[in-house]
């Protein structure tokens, strides 16, 4: 049995939810990993391209779509999958509803995170569940794509659609040592002012992929 207990206690488990590497990115693995060869320097052409992408994303707010989350853990034979929908308002307020296989809804409004489950609603503070709170903060910031804001936590990399093929790819590596313990890097992929896919990779083999899909614009109105 002792060989089974070889697992080594890792530091904080808490923030761990924010990571993963997208399975589907496996297909375009070359492109996704290649993004980290293209750092974005302030004032450079890449920075301008990033601003263009950010503008497109912002212009599409409010945005609604379907979510599918796949959590790949080495200790699981199959990934854990959940599905739902989200709405992001222009002011950053976010609705995040999981419908399968269980119904749980989160909403982030004016910096306050609430969870609804079994008909009961509870407020979640950053100090009580920093990882969960951090996830939603990160998500809101991704759709905002403020380079300056991102730069204060991450090193930012970019492959434009022209370089990568169909989509642009943004890479983020955390600078904060605490974040580094739970998050190795983030890859965001999108096109036409929409984010299609976000991959959060943990140090090690485990990763999480979030897929976003959008109904036609007239339907979401």
């Amino acid at each position, binding site marked *: *049995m002792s060989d*089974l*207990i070889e*697992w080594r*206690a*890792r*530091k*904080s*488990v*808490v923030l*761990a*939810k*924010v*990571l*993963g590497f997208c399975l589907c990115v496996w297909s375009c693995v070359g492109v996704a990993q290649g993004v980290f060869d293209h750092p974005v320097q302030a004032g450079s052409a890449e920075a301008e391209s990033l601003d263009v992408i950010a503008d497109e994303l912002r212009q599409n707010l409010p945005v609604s779509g379907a979510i599918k*989350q796949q*959590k790949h*853990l*080495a*200790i*699981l*034979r*199959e990934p*854990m*999958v*959940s599905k739902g929908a989200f709405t992001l308002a222009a002011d950053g307020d976010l609705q*995040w509803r*999981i419908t399968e*296989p*269980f119904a*749980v809804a*989160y909403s982030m409004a004016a*910096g306050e995170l609430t969870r609804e*489950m079994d008909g009961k609603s509870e407020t979640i*503070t*950053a*100090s*009580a*569940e*920093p*990882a*969960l*709170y951090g*996830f*939603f*903060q990160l*998500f*809101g*910031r991704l759709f905002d794509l403020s380079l300056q*804001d991102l730069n*204060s936590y991450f090193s930012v990399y970019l492959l434009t659609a022209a370089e990568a093929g169909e989509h642009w790819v943004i890479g983020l590596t955390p600078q904060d040592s605490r974040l580094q313990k*739970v998050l190795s890097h983030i890859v965001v992929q999108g096109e036409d002012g929409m984010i299609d896919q976000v991959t*959060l990779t*943990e140090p090690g083999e*485990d990763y*999480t992929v979030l897929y976003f899909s959008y109904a036609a614009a007239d339907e979401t109105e």
Partner: protein
Amino acid sequence: MNSLSLARRLSGFWLLVMLALMVWQLPKLALNSNILALFPDADSRSAETRVEQAFSARFERRVVLLFGADDEVLARKTLPFLTETLRQCDCFEVAAADSQVGLLDQFYRGHNASLLTKAWRDKLSNLTPNQLVDQAQRRLLTRPGGMSAQSLINDPLGSLSDFSRATAPSTNIRLDQAGNAYISLDERRYYVIPLELNGSPFNVSLQNRARKALARAASRWADLPGADVLKTGALFYTLAGTDQARQEISTVGAGSLLGIILLLLLVFRSPALLLLAFVPLITGVLAGLAVSALVFGAVHVMALVFGAALVGVAIDYSLHYFAARMATGRQWVVSEGSRRLLPPLVLGLATSVVGYLSFMAAGFPGFSQIAVVSSAGLVTALATVLFCYPSLLAKAPKRAMPTYLQRLVRGLSRAHEYILQPLARPGWLLLVLLLLIGWLSLAPTSDSIRQMQRPNPALVQMETRVRESLGAGAALQYVLLQAPSDTVLMHRLEKAAERLQTLQEASVLDGFDALTRVLPSPRQQQENRALWQSAVVDAGVLEELAQRLQLTDSAYQQMLDASATSNTITLKALQPVLMERPDLPLYFVEEGLHYSAISLTAPRELDTIKQALAGVEGVTLVDPVARTDRLLQHYRHSATGLLLLAYGVIALLLARRYGAPGALMVILPPALASAVSLALISALGQALNVFNMMALLLVLGIGIDYTLFLREAHSEQLGTRLAIGLSTLTTVLSFGLLALSATAAIHSFGLTVLIGILLAYFLAPLVVLARTTTKA
């Protein structure tokens, strides 16, 4: 060698020693303004002392700043400069808010079975295994961003992270997207910067550095639109206290100085004499501070007030000299005049010093300081007078005492004696004194520290506002638990916590913080493990969960192992974590006994809490405020006893020179003055306190000089009367102003001296009248 030249040589030697001491000690002078530092704290139980020291170290040094502004983005950009400014001052540590938070989580790992919250115990007892698996699966699957492998294995149901979360203190502090702590106050965001002082908030030099750093930070922030800074912490009270003391001392100092200058110019009409009068004052005050710094390290503000008040006593030595010289006029021969003044001056000094030093017998640190400051100051002042004046005042004055002044003094003296004559019956006076003392022993008294040291209301208001918005803070009262072992201690804590919980639900208090928050008792842990075994392991919850999630075999085994620990977590094992986390409840072992403290939030009915805890062994509700009040009462009693002792010792000293009845007549006027002034203050509706008693010591010291000089005056009545009259005026000028102080303690003191000295002056001629009456 005659006594005069001996006195001069001794004085010269003393002055040399004092000069050396001043050069050595004065540059490193430190001030203390805590009223309680005046009193010993020896009679509190050692465990209480330790708890309170830990509490005060925790609370006293804590400073919380809240910075609010209209523009959040601008505010966030300015914050780093703010912390940098504050960090630059070596007076602060910028407290790391959550650096130690992970410690407990690590400690708990592997103890899922032992550590269950009440909610989880209910769940495990009531839900079916299938429901438990469903809930666990839902938690793992629907979590945005998902769960890490480690948390899945180590805490499959999420019960441990719920327990861990419950150990965190409740707080309203939120984090913004950049991780800055803030609270919402009046619909505005205030960024929270917690700081820790690097020393006692009473340290004056630390206060000054902190004040500068805070001002720099505030001025930086003030540039933002809608800038607002809120602050809380003991530091701001001590800063206000120091400012107030400084301001009052300078008011009193300036007032008395101005009054004395005018008085001396008016009477003696000589700027040279005026300058000469201040030499002994300055040397006296400086020597008093230097000796006090040498003996005690820091000088208490109250002792400093006394030191400044030395002006009122030490000037008397000069006044007697000047008055004698002026009254003698052209016939002034310095050696003759000095010889006549020497006995009453030395006797006056001796009685004052004996009076002050008798207070040292009590061992009160504050009184000892006052005694040392005053004694050293007075001795030095007199030494200066004896050393310098004979050579500097050798020449007879150019002008004799003006006739109008002579008439005034004689007229006043006659009127004074005429009024006083009917009272000059020693037997009756003694009876009146005894009756007054008897009556005073029944007079209402006050020993409330809250009344004597009343904090600035604006600060209290701000503190309340900040406290309410930050979430509850601990009250001064706390519950102290004691037990022969850590296990028994945990069980007692659990019992006490249960009862407090009931009281909290009944709104008797807002909350409490016991060690049970972070560690269930051994019995509870055992019950938890039994529950876990039956409801989770035996019921197959983990197995079913592993199957549904398709956990690998090795991971399943790890999951089983992770919650299989059957050891009870002991307090001893937790102790290293507690050492690192001073925010957690206190636990310590002393002389084989185990102690812990439960802090209380907003306890409303202390008696109800006391009653509720009555049945639990080894538990006491400690109320430091009430205890301090009891201490003050004890000191009031002791001070009264010591004052009587001082009168007794002085009477014995004087009896050698004047005989018993003569000595009695010398001390009777100041004693009567003291008793009557207390009676007046009491009749004015003020409750008597320890500071009234301290003031009476000064009334004794100065008042007895009056009677001594009158007694020794023989044919030089005119000069003596003038000197005593002037002395009374200067004392009233220097102390009367203290009665205006906003600090109740200093006000009581000043008022007592004011009334006491006026009465002592008024009654002083009794010493002469009683003699003539007795002789007749």
